[in-house]
């Protein structure tokens, strides 16, 4: 985890740090710029550390092994979804369908587990990969806005889910002893498999973003799509792939959640896209694309998770408070980010 967020985020072509300021006393200004850009990138990590520190002082039960493992496990599903969302947002797009795809992935996996483990893994990835491909094709080939396209696949995937489950009346149960269930239920010591799977995916995602041509193309598209096309980068292929990736990761998150719950719950994932987008934005990725890190997203996910945990610890507060805090947080982060990136560009 720390290695993921520890890698410098010097990947964006439009890295504002390289642009020297021309106004004000040189050194002071550039130091301020450095602070601004560091805050934008590492802000979520700093706030996460402060929140964890404060919560451990305040609640005795917070900084315990059991509670921390619990937070990690419960947020590993969202983390996987948010990883895919990070890539989509880095290209300047958005994927609102992930919540429905998450639920669909879980249900198809639970259905497949009734046959055998291979079907349980392959079938949801095929179905959801196809949805991602549809998103990508409609956005890239037909030139429709990502927002609208993924909004309709949000509807359509939910519809497909309902038609597979007799309008939501049927819940597929994963047979006891199915090896598919170990994906969600297996543990190493006290740590559940989903935590390791999520970390491994973040490792791969970070390398993919920062060390491969694909990752560089993603960032280039987000910085300036026309320029990326003119430079001859494989823009169409990359954009389509990013949406396929997002759907696959959302499905995988849902599959792990289904494996953990031993059933394909039909009502999960509603509003999950909002949590994923919040985590990405809080993690310092600009919604205009081109700038951001996978490590920041992970910190954003954990921050949301820690806040939820604190709200649960306080007790007597229901999930509505979580929504209020998340919304307020999002506003503050977006405003601060806009100011910070403005400062760097000046």
């Amino acid at each position, binding site marked *: 985890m720390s290695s993921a967020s520890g890698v410098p985020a010097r990947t964006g072509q439009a890295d504002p740090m390289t642009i020297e300021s021309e106004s004000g006393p040189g050194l002071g200004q550039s130091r301020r710029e450095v602070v601004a850009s560091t805050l934008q990138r590492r802000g979520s990590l700093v706030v996460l550390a402060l929140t964890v520190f404060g919560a451990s002082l305040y609640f005795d039960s917070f900084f315990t092994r059991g509670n921390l493992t619990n937070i990690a496990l419960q947020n590993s599903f969202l983390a996987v979804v948010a990883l895919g969302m990070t890539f989509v947002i880095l290209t300047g797009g*958005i994927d609102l369908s992930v919540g429905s795809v998450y639920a669909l992935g879980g249900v198809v996996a639970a259905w497949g587990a009734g046959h055998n483990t291979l079907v349980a893994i392959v079938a949801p990835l095929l179905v959801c990969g196809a949805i991602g491909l549809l998103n990508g094709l*409609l956005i890239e080939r*037909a*030139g*429709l*806005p990502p*927002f*609208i*396209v993924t*909004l*309709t*696949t949000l*509807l*359509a995937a*939910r*519809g*497909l*889910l*309902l*038609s597979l489950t007799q*309008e*939501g009346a049927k819940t597929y149960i994963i047979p006891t002893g199915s090896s598919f269930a170990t994906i969600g239920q297996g543990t190493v010591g006290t740590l559940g498999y989903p935590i390791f799977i999520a970390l491994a995916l973040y490792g791969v995602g970070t390398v993919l973003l920062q060390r491969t041509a694909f990752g560089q193309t993603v960032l280039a598209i987000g910085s300036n799509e026309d320029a990326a096309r003119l430079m001859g980068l494989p823009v169409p292929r990359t954009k389509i792939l990013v949406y396929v990736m997002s759907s696959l990761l959302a499905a995988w998150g849902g599959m792990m959640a289904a494996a953990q719950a031993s059933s394909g719950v039909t009502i999960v994932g509603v*509003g999950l896209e*909002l949590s994923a*987008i*919040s985590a990405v*934005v809080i993690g310092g990725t600009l*919604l*205009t694309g081109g700038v951001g890190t996978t490590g920041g997203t992970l910190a954003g996910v954990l921050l949301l998770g820690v806040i939820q945990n604190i709200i649960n610890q306080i007790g007597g507060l*229901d*999930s*509505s*408070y*979580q*929504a*209020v*805090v*998340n*919304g*307020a947080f*999002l*506003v503050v982060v*977006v*405003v601060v980010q*806009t*100011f910070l990136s*403005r400062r760097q560009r000046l």
Partner: protein
Amino acid sequence: MTALTAARARVRLDTRWLQDNGVYVALVAILLIDLALNPSFVSPGSLRTQLIQVVPVLIVALGMALVIGTEGIDLSVGSVMALATALLPLYLGYGVVGGVAVALGIGIAVGALNGWLVAVIGVQPIVATLALLVGGRGLANVIGGSQKDIHNTTLNHFGGGELFNIPYIVVLAAVLAALVAFLVRRTTFGRQLVAVGGNRVASQLAGLPVRRVLITVYILSGLLAAVAGVVATARLQASAPDQLGRNIELAAITAVVVGGTPLTGGRVRILGTVAGAFLMQLIQSTLISENLKDSVTQMVQAAIIIVAVYVQRSRQS
């Protein structure tokens, strides 16, 4: 060569015509289909029910059309409805006027916050209004709590009463639609709105009050959403902050886009939006009356939205 150009021009003209009038064609088509499949569906009584049901979406869509006209989007409308319905019963003690004023006030406040984030801070509309979509619903639940019945005769009369056999709320929706149409077509503000949506930078350079226009547009959207919240509450005779207005942003955006307002801004079609809202309502109830399942209904609606957006898209090229 000239024949080719002419043919191309005709195709373009046809696309253009389809973009502008497709929604009316579709509306007639769906009515004819209903007439063939299930004549009782097209009876005055049944159509009246459709009218009543479409009112909240329609009112929200009017504000959405203005926002989309400026190349923006307002995802917070459903949460504004929830906030309005949560606050309304709390302040009914000061009379209906007091309660409604507070409910509309929260709409204006949310709209002002949206507008400030978009126009002054420079946040993308999707993100700015997304934050309020998440937070607003939570706040409404915190304030309003669980569903509660409302026993206010004035409000309930407004929700269920009629004027010359037309429900009050339908009259209200028609008046609001006329007002918004007037605003867009006949006022300076309407011209400025379309100009800002068409080219924000040029509008700025031309000396238009871009910030003020944007903030006003989001305030209007919030206000109209709050009105929709009050109307829905009066009709239900109950306040249900957790459920009211869920996913209404999707329905409203669909109505606007189907009605011929491009998502790229610079053009607002109010009559089209009204027709779009009514079309989607009719499609939904037709699918339901033909005993199609929820799942199929959702998938069909998704397909219709994609087709509508695709047809609108060709305008730019």
